[in-house]
């Protein structure tokens, strides 16, 4: 049986006519099936970034503390003491709708491999999740599967899941977003890269056996969804966290030796992308003998093996004199070790199977002739101003409605299913601080880690939304006392062939760029997920940002739980901005107006002041003001502290629920208040005393109306348990 290789087949693999012509030109003949498969996955949006590259290039990626920026498996920054933090966030959106458990689980597995392949022990996982309308049964099914999948994988591999975020919006109905982030730690002089070297060196396959799962997964991630997407279930991979755990330990043990020349995980497009990228980066050639690939199914063809996305597999280039030692370490962990080829000087990838050459492609043209599109784009029209609003809803009623809503309610039901303490280094767990705090082994230092984006801002004004996403991660890290260092970005957008979607992408990038520059906060890694549309309806533009900061002394970290008897101070300028706020949506039933602008100079000024005051020990608890505004932040403080609040400041709905940026609530000792306010004034920073924490078990509003903490807690904690009861 032979398949006819023609444009119709190439099109079904996701190539357009110009790309198909280019393949024929490079090959000087009609490609074989395996060759066409290799071209189509390498040139897919997912692997080639063909629509996004021209824009991503504009992001700032350098700083004195950046060791490796974008282009490696993950970003690497220097965090002092000879240690590096290695991190990245990556999407697994399309598989997570089709098969939520395995889609999410393998998303976690994939991002873990990107990090430990560089020599880092993973110390923290986070996840940024977006789901559709909670009133739809399908949303409940997806939430349940995704949460179980993340927990099932992360809990088993023993990496604590310490943070993340969850939003709901109907635009994600057929297209949830599962963005998983891993942070690992390595010594700065023990970082492993993927560029192959050494003609004749063995190419070694380590990990699970190869099956037929996930073939053309990268291509699936590069198209829109439609009603037939359910038929794509066979392209979703199946995760095996136990093998991943063995792979982590085996690789880290092998990395203590000098056996490894280069290493990369087999992620999207499996053996194809790992071998092509490793040889390409090293400027060498590679020959693979597929007969030696460990297989768990019989009769697999070269095409299937090259495109399989079976999980928990790594590709290594070894020093030949170390192969026996390497084999002994890998086999100690009961993993397959197979030499499946060698490095050549031909500059070509040659794939042989059963004595037949199934593919023979020059690597440079495969990479250099990869399509690159500067797609047409249009700017998102600026939203009209809100105009006058009816702000007469009583404060207590508005607060109870807001903190019970799906976007603001407690995420306890979710994080109670994730092991957040394994490793014994989790200083701040979920819902204790604005960023998760994880101490480094045998060190006083800790990392502060968060993920943030506000898609409803991005859709209204992609520039301000892009700025805000970066700034909010910076603020969340700052609110713990840590110094923000760098970000990873996970760009989730609709179909880039539509000018308005391309415009959202391009403009979000411009906003992110401005924030990164103003905050000295470069991008060191990232991932792009396009075509997030179902039947022509795009998701909200969602540039999820993962931020990492460092604390020299973990003991300096603050959370937002405050003791009774402290003064509460509102830091930053409050205008009462309600455009695109949750108050506007949940209380007034509107989703319009401009999002809050981010004044990056004020952001930096306020943040640097807050961080210094935390490190000096003046601020004892701190919470940034974000979704839902000031009163929601205060309610969260009361619940985390299990202490009452007596609020004294006067203001309208805009004051209490506006989402003005660059703001914090700080709790400090009464004796420190006057000095603190004087220091803020000297720095030109608004610092308004708004109330205090009290021993009475209630939140008392300035109008004298009180909400008991149990009532507040019931409202806040109710949604998820009731939904899944």
């Amino acid at each position: 049986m032979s398949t006819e290789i023609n444009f119709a087949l190439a099109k079904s693999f996701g190539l357009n006519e110009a790309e198909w012509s280019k393949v024929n030109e490079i090959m000087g003949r009609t490609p074989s099936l395996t060759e066409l498969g290799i071209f189509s996955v390498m040139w897919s949006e997912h692997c080639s970034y063909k629509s996004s590259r021209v824009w991503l290039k504009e992001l700032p990626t350098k700083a004195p503390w950046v060791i490796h920026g974008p282009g490696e498996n993950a970003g690497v920054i220097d965090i002092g003491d000879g240690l590096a933090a290695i991190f990245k966030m990556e999407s697994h959106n399309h598989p997570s709708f089709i098969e939520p458990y395995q889609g999410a689980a393998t998303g976690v597995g994939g991002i873990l491999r990107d990090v430990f392949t560089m020599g880092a022990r993973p110390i923290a996982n986070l996840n940024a999740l977006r789901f559709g309308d909670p009133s739809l049964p399908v949303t409940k099914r997806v939430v349940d599967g995704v949460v179980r999948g993340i927990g099932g994988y992360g809990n088993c591999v023993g990496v604590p899941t310490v943070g993340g975020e969850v939003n709901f919006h109907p635009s994600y109905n057929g297209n949830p977003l599962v963005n998983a982030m891993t942070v690992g730690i390595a010594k700065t002089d023990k970082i492993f890269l993927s560029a192959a070297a050494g003609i004749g060196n063995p190419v070694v396959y380590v990990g699970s056996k190869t099956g037929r799962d996930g073939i053309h997964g990268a291509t699936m991630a590069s198209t829109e969804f439609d009603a037939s997407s359910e038929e794509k279930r066979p392209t979703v991979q199946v995760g095996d966290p136990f093998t991943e755990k063995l792979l982590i330990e085996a690789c880290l043990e092998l990395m203590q030796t000098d056996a490894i020349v280069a290493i990369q995980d087999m992620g999207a497009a499996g053996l194809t992308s790992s071998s092509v990228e490793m040889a390409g980066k090293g400027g060498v050639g590679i020959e693979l003998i597929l007969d030696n690939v460990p297989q768990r199914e019989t009769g697999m063809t070269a095409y299937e093996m090259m495109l399989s996305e079976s999980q928990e597999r790594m590709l290594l280039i070894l020093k030949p004199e170390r192969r026996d030692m390497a084999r002994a370490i890998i086999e100690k962990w009961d993993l397959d070790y197979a030499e499946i080829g060698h490095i050549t000087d031909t500059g070509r990838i040659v794939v042989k199977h059963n004595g037949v050459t199934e593919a023979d492609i020059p690597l440079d043209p495969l990479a250099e002739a990869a399509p690159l599109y500067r797609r047409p784009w249009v700017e998102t029209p600026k939203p009209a101003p809100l105009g006058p609003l009816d702000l007469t809803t009583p404060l207590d009623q508005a607060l109870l409605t807001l903190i019970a809503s799906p976007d603001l309610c407690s995420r306890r039901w979710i994080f109670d299913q994730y092991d957040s303490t394994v490793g014994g280094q989790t200083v701040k767990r979920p819902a204790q601080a604005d960023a998760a705090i994880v101490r480094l082994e045998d060190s006083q230092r800790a990392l502060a880690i968060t993920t943030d984006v506000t898609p409803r801002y991005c859709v209204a004004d992609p520039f301000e939304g892009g700025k805000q996403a970066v700034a909010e991660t910076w603020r969340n890290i700052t609110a713990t006392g840590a110094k923000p260092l760098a970000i990873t970005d996970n760009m989730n957008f609709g179909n880039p062939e539509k000018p308005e979607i391309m415009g959202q992408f391009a403009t979000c990038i411009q906003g992110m760029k401005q924030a990164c520059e103003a905050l000295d906060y470069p991008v060191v890694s990232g991932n792009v997920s396009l075509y997030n549309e179902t039947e022509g309806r795009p998701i909200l533009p969602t540039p999820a940002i993962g931020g990492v900061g460092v604390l020299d002394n973990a003991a300096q970290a603050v959370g937002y739980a405050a003791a009774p008897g402290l003064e509460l101070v509102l830091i930053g300028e409050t205008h009462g901005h309600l455009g695109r706020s949750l108050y506007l949506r949940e209380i007034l039933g509107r989703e319009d107006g401009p999002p809050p602008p981010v004044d990056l100079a004020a952001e930096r000024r306020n943040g640097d002041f807050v961080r210094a005051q935390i490190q000096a020990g003046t601020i004892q608890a701190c919470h940034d003001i974000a979704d839902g505004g000031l009163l929601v932040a205060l309610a969260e403080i009361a619940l985390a502290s299990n202490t009452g609040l007596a609020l004294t400041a006067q203001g309208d709905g805009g004051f209490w629920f506006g989402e003005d940026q660059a703001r914090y609530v700080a709790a400090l000792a009464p004796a420190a208040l006057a000095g603190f306010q004087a220091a803020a004034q000297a720095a030109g920073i608004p610092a308004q005393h708004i109330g205090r924490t009290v021993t009475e078990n209630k939140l008392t509003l300035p109008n004298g109306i009180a909400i008991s903490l149990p009532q507040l807690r019931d409202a806040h904690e109710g949604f998820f348990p009731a939904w899944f009861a």
Partner: protein
Amino acid sequence: MKAAILLFPGINRERDMVLAVRQSFGHEPQIVWHKETALPPGTDLVILPGGFSFGDYLRCGAMAAHSPIMPAVQAHAARGGYVLGVCNGFQILTEAGLLPGALLRNASLRFLSMDTMLKVERADTVFTSKWQPGAIFRAPMAHGDGNYTADPATLDRLEGENLVAFRYADENRNGSARSIAGIFSPNLRVLGLMPHPENLVDPLMGGTDGKPLFDSLAAA
């Protein structure tokens, strides 16, 4: 007290256990790979930490209970040596027959990760001497299969012989029979429990509620 921590493939809380042991004992425990067939000479305490040995793919702890190191652990216990199994370690001890009963899926059929309150049922053992009798302490739990069960006669015997070590004192979230969170062997030298005292031994991680377990052993 010389401690050996067993490392089965898929175990993931051995580093946490090392931290707790190092802090209370003042020296490093030995890590012993499951394919070894002997314990380090002079081992007083064998610790089976938490995790997912062999992926929990057959039944939690069932494969590890047949690892090459386990005959040496059986012999150590038979000699009256101390054995501590936490979480997956507890599951392995029940599968190996060193403790009675079994750990089923949590009643909610969901993984449970949160702090729980535990009541110390007896403080006259080598594992619990630093607590007051009836003390209540906090410990993180993190398990999918912590629902302790045994036949009624076994449960009655455990109660009658005063072999229940810890009970859930606030909420019995995983559905354990008689709220049992941990049990002793009849000679009080083998302890298995589901929650993780080793994750609460440092004020920076939220408290030191779990430290008395390790201080008790260090003082023995």
